[in-house]
């Protein structure tokens, strides 16, 4: 873990740098594109792309002049009076004080005005015969009252010729020439930066959420913010930004331009980040899941679920149980009653009801009797089915009392019960037959086997000249004994697996049992050069088992240990107790390689190929397992390399150990 992180780190940082660079370039391109496109639109409005330079220049001058004249006049009025108090009469009054103000304005706003009212009467003029560079006319409405009265002022403005480098119009001229020359370049810049931005934007969306060496996109800290909260924050931010921009465009106030520009600078990376986060959320499929609305709905759904399971369901279940518990005849009667009552109520409001009620009554009674009869038949069929389910195969439905389809169904049910009882009988017979067969066959084999063993023994007592004959006889002896053992095992496995074995359960103290069993095997263990290690974690473990059968289980397991454990190793026997169950664990190291799965060792007659030619039937483990299960325990095998583990688990016996 540590290693991989340290290995990843440089990759991560380069990747992060690339990401950051993309983001930065994206912002830059976005700003450039926005700026150029806005400029192009503005320029197009002023006719940069349609007219000659002079025409364009005139257009700009007109616009500038008008704006400046209107602004100057409005500001002058605002200087001499409070604009909110400006009334019709006041304007007349203030007209006289405007001239001085207009003159003062000229020092800053390089424009001269001649203001006249709607009648053509000149109120004020600051024009003193200067050389004219440009002149034009405009008007502003100063007041528009509810009584359909308005005060309008007509302005004739003059932009005087300027000395080089003196005023803003000279700068404007230079700027105009510059912009006019570059007007197509601006389109190109706008277009190219826009296209580049689109490409970068796509790249950013693609890499959003991805990290080096990780296939799937994953959410960053920022992405965990609920989507709707994020959208709301951006919406508020955007709203204020647009309002600010609108105000800037309205007034071109330098106080506002700087923060607006700053805001745009901040906004462009933020909007890009927003889009990236959006993309990441889409990739991780949490766009809708990670919203406050979703959490809210989920909470409501949980509450509803809780109400449903804890409040409505039990009530519904109780109701359902009550209904289901009713006999079918009663149910039918109830439904009939409800329907009849409804019909009766409906009929009650029919005007000529007496006759109709009579007919209805007759019809209802006939109908009800028929239905109740069918319900009764249904009830009998149901009872028959229930008896079948409970295993009462002798229950017969009386077909004579049935009608039509009900009778057919009853017959079918009766046939099923007959079929099943046949099958059960057959099964029991075959089971019995099988046990009998095994017992008889084994008896039949035992007799000749006894003869064989006896005569082999007799032969061994004879004096033979040939050494070979003696050897052959030994083989015969060994094999006949093996056959005997095999047959006994076979018989036992058949009895144990069919459960055909009398079990006499008694309280059995496992620690005592273990010491007894080890005592029985001590010599054999010593001979096989094995040292048993007994570990009793919980003494006084008492289980309920047939001691004799349990000993057979142990006998099988321990004789396996003696046969198959590697000499010079230890054999571990652990007794533990947990959750009301006692567990005995046998562990030993196998002499031979155990190249088969543990389960195969339990299958009858299957053994590791290596051990096939040793003595024993291969049934030992199988017998042990069957016997253990007969006594309510569990036997499981585990092979871990050469480590061979057998664990026996029995439920603990609650009663006090009987001495």
């Amino acid at each position, binding site marked *: 873990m540590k290693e991989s992180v340290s290995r990843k780190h440089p990759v991560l940082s380069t990747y992060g740098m690339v990401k950051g660079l993309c983001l930065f370039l994206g912002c830059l391109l976005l700003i450039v594109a926005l700026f150029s496109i806005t400029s192009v639109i503005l320029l197009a409005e002023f006719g940069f792309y349609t007219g000659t330079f002079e025409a364009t220049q005139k257009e700009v001058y007109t616009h500038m002049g008008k704006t400046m004249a209107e602004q100057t006049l409005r500001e002058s009025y605002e200087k001499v009076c409070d604009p909110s108090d400006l009334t019709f009469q006041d304007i007349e009054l203030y007209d006289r004080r405007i001239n001085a103000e207009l003159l003062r304005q000229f020092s800053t706003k390089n424009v001269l005005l001649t203001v006249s009212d709607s009648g053509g009467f000149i109120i004020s003029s600051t024009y003193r015969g200067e050389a004219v560079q440009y002149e034009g006319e405009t008007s502003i409405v100063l007041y528009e009252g509810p009584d359909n009265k308005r005060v309008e002022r007509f302005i004739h403005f003059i932009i005087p010729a300027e000395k080089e480098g003196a005023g803003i119009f000279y700068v404007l001229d230079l700027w105009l020439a510059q912009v006019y020359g570059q007007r197509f370049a601006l389109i190109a810049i706008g277009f190219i930066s826009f296209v580049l931005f689109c490409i970068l934007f796509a790249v950013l969306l693609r890499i959003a959420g991805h990290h080096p060496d990780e296939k799937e996109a994953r959410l960053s800290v920022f992405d965990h913010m609920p989507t709707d909260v994020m959208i709301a924050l951006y919406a508020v931010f955007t709203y204020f930004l647009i309002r600010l921009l609108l105000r800037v465009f309205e007034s071109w106030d330098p106080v506002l331009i700087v923060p607006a520009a700053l805001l745009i600078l901040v906004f462009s990376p933020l909007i890009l980040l927003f889009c990236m986060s959006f993309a990441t959320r889409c990739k991780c499929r949490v766009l809708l899941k990670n919203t406050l609305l979703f959490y809210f709905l989920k909470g409501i759904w949980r509450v509803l679920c809780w109400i449903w399971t804890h409040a409505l369901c039990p009530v519904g279940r109780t109701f359902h149980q009550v209904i289901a518990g009713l006999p079918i005849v009663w149910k039918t009667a109830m439904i009939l009653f409800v329907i009849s009552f409804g019909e009766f109520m409906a009929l009650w409001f029919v005007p000529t009801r007496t006759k109709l009620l009579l007919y209805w009554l007759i019809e209802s009674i006939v109908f009800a009797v028929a239905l109740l009869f069918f319900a009764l038949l249904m009830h009998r069929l149901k009872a028959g089915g229930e008896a079948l389910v409970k295993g009462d195969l002798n229950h017969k439905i009386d077909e004579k009392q049935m009608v039509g389809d009900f009778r057919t169904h009853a017959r079918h049910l009766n046939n099923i019960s007959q079929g099943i009882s046949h099958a059960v009988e057959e099964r029991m017979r075959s089971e019995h037959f099988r046990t009998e067969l095994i*017992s008889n066959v*084994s*008896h039949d084999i*035992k*007799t*000749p*086997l*006894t*003869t*064989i*063993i*006896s*005569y082999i*023994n*007799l032969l061994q*007592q004879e004096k033979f000249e040939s050494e070979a004959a003696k050897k052959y006889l030994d083989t015969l002896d060994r094999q006949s004994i093996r056959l*005997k053992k095999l047959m*006994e095992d076979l*018989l036992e496995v058949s009895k144990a697996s069919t459960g055909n074995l*009398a079990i006499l359960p*008694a*309280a*059995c*103290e*496992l620690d*005592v*049992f273990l*010491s*007894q*069993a*080890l*005592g*029985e095997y*001590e*010599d054999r263990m010593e001979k096989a050069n094995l040292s048993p290690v007994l570990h009793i974690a919980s003494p006084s473990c008492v*289980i309920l*088992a047939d*001691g*004799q059968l*349990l*000993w057979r289980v142990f006998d099988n397991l321990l004789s396996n240990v003696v046969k198959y454990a590697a000499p010079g190793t230890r054999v571990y026997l652990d007794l533990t107790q947990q959750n009301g169950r006692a567990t005995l664990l046998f562990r030993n190291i196998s002499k031979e390689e155990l190249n088969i799965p543990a389960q195969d060792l339990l299958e009858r007659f299957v053994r590791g190929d290596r051990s096939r030619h040793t003595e024993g039937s291969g049934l030992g483990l199988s017998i042990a397992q069957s016997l253990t299960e007969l006594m309510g325990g569990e036997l499981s095998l585990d092979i871990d390399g050469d480590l061979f583990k057998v664990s026996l688990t029995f439920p603990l016996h609650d009663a006090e150990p*009987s*001495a």
Partner: protein
Amino acid sequence: MNILICDDERDIVAALEIYLRTEGYTTFCAYNGREALDILAREEVHLLLMDIMMPVMDGISAMTELRKTSNVPVILLTAKSEETDMVLGLNLGADDYVTKPFRPVELLARVRSQLRRFTRLGGTASDIGSDDTLLQVGNICMNDKKKVVSVDGEPVSLTPTEYDILRFLMQHPGEVFSPKELYRRVWGDNPFGAENTVAVHIRHLREKLEITPSEPRFLKVVWGQGYKMEQTATPKKGDASAQ
């Protein structure tokens, strides 16, 4: 000594004849229960070896018939290895049983044991004496005064510990003692994990006293509880020796 062999399998009868003759017994042969009863009526027989499943008359019926008149020891040869069959046979008056397929050695040992008991108990039972220092369970006798233990009259040599264990168990026949308890009573000491010793000693004892140590008739293991000496009815000729 005359021994009657009764089995429907002639080869087995023939083999047993050879074995018993080499041991010096006189043998009679019968091939079903009826024949056996006939021979028993005619001849003096000291021991009966009988199969259970036979044609004409099976071993159980023949033995039931026989027990009405005779106390001759009966060893059942049975192919049925179920515990219940043995118990049934012993309850009906058999003295011992051998399950097929048996090894001739084991059978001969049982024959010897039964014959010895029969002659000792039947004939000269008094030579053991009715001493209260004499303990007897089945074919195992212990004279605590002389410190001798005999099985079917044959002395058995025991180590002092084995002797003490055996005496304690024989003094309390039918009672089950846990290894700890046995240790405490015999060694007079606390075991502290020495229970295994008890188990080993018991096994040695069994090997010395029982004909087939893996299937003890008297010195029994009560698995998961302890050990006990089987309680037998007062030794009487022809009585069921164990259950």
